[in-house]
């Protein structure tokens, strides 16, 4: 700071400029508010005046059914959370392992590398629900000693296989995005291939892929509901049970609300990280 800075007072021209900017800002905020209110009112009127609204209100938005079913749905939702928490770290390990295998150049690893390519091609191609069926019903049918028969374990295994393939591709994109000059610098210091990967490439790659990884996690949180098809009693299954008994669909809304409550914070966190990365790029970092 120089003394000149401290004695600087804004010129009239600048004061006027800022006044005009503030006025324009207030105007656009006003327009945004007004259009939002009008839009919501219109949608509200459209829904409430529709001929079936009374029926919908009774079957989907019944407060008494909501209260009666909520404890069960919430307990079922606990199963979703557990499946998610177990699957997530394992997916990260599988994804990272497959991505790194695809990046190796050592000839010894050729069969493993080929296997990694086959794995991603195959499991990205199979719809998750189909994979859950195949593993959930197929593995117990083998009647092999020692294979798990708990549908939760099999369902989670299917999710890991499916999402592992996606996450592997995300990691691979991150690894490829690290500029070759970084590898050259590391190798020129005498670091071996693995050391270069571990200390130079991966730390930069992982930082870059956190936002897309979070996106996959959000998707995974929802897809834990697919495991209900194997008979696991989760939030969706609980809602099904209740609605079958009471002819009311409100528990589905309750389950949906629970999933949204879980994913929204993660979505906002992903947005925050993406924005932060954007700011860093704008600030002109070296790579």
């Amino acid at each position: 700071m120089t003394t000149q800075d401290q004695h600087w007072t804004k010129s009239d021209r600048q004061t006027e400029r800022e006044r005009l900017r503030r006025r324009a800002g207030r105007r656009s905020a006003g327009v945004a508010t007004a259009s939002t209110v009008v839009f919501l009112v219109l949608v509200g009127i459209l829904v409430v005046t529709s001929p079936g609204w009374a029926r919908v209100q009774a079957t989907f938005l019944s407060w008494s059914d909501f209260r009666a079913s909520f404890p069960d749905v919430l307990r079922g939702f606990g199963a979703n959370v557990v499946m998610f928490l177990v699957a997530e770290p394992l997916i990260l390990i599988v994804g990272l392992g497959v991505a790194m295998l695809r990046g190796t150049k050592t000839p010894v690893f050729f069969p493993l590398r080929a296997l990694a390519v086959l794995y991603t091609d195959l499991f990205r191609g199979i719809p998750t629900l189909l994979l859950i069926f195949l593993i959930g019903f197929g593995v117990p049918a083998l009647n092999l000693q020692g294979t798990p028969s708990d549908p939760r374990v099999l369902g989670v295994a299917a999710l890991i296989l499916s999402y592992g393939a996606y996450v592997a591709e995300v990691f691979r994109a991150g690894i490829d995005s690290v500029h070759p000059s970084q590898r050259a610098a590391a190798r020129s210091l005498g670091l071996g291939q693995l050391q270069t990967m571990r200390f130079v490439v991966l730390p930069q790659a992982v930082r870059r892929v956190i936002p897309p990884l979070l996106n996959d996690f959000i998707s995974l949180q929802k897809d834990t509901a697919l495991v209900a098809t194997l008979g696991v009693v989760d939030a969706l299954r609980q809602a099904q049970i209740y609605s079958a008994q009471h002819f009311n669909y409100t528990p589905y809304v309750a389950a949906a609300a629970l999933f949204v409550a879980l994913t929204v914070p993660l979505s906002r966190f992903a947005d925050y990280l993406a924005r932060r990365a954007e700011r860093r790029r704008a600030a002109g970092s070296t790579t």
Partner: protein
Amino acid sequence: MSLLSIEGVWKTYHRHPVLRGVDLDVEAHEVVCLIGASGSGKSTLLRCVNLLETVDDGAIHLDGAEITAVDADPDAIRQQIGIVFQSYNLFPHMTVLENITLAPVQVHKVPRRQAAEQARELLDRFGLADKAGEYPDRLSGGQQQRVAIIRALACKPKVMLLDEITSALDPELVTEVMGVVRELKEGGMTMLMATHEMGFAREIADTVCFLDGGVLLERGTPEQIFTAPEQQRTRDFLSRVLESRRL
């Protein structure tokens, strides 16, 4: 035998020859400057010495051992050679101190504390003591390049390769990087450097080599090359550079 000897090295990219039989010897404690137009093969030659490129013919010996041998261990060879790039290539996710200590700790198995101590000594010597904890993107280009030199130096190389290390810098930052190189020379470091800074080459080099179209056309003392070049192409190159006021 010379510390570094390059014999008849050829390198082609997609059939386009970049180096066409280059012979060059660098003695211990000697500073050799490579000059020549862009695309004359200066950087490629340095990358071949550091095994970042494989030669297509010829051989390179370091300290009597052939480093271009098929069974040579590139990691072990690179540990004896320091290289500094035009674009610094610091690791952006590591602090200055971590950048410098990475190779000593992971490759040379120096205890972490000792490596940090040595790194601080080097930073202190080159006027960067207060930057140890900073990340590279907080430093100026000149500071980043000095850190890159220190990072290479921390591995105690037998020879340093400098690849146009001032080309990406603003003019007022060039001098601080040159100062570091000057100090390395006083310390007796063997250096092979590609440069566009003719004035600096003239001041610091023991030997200047003019590369043209992948051929080492002329070699001599700075006096010979800059005042009485024998080859017409060398004269042309120097007058072109002089015109653009780089000399």
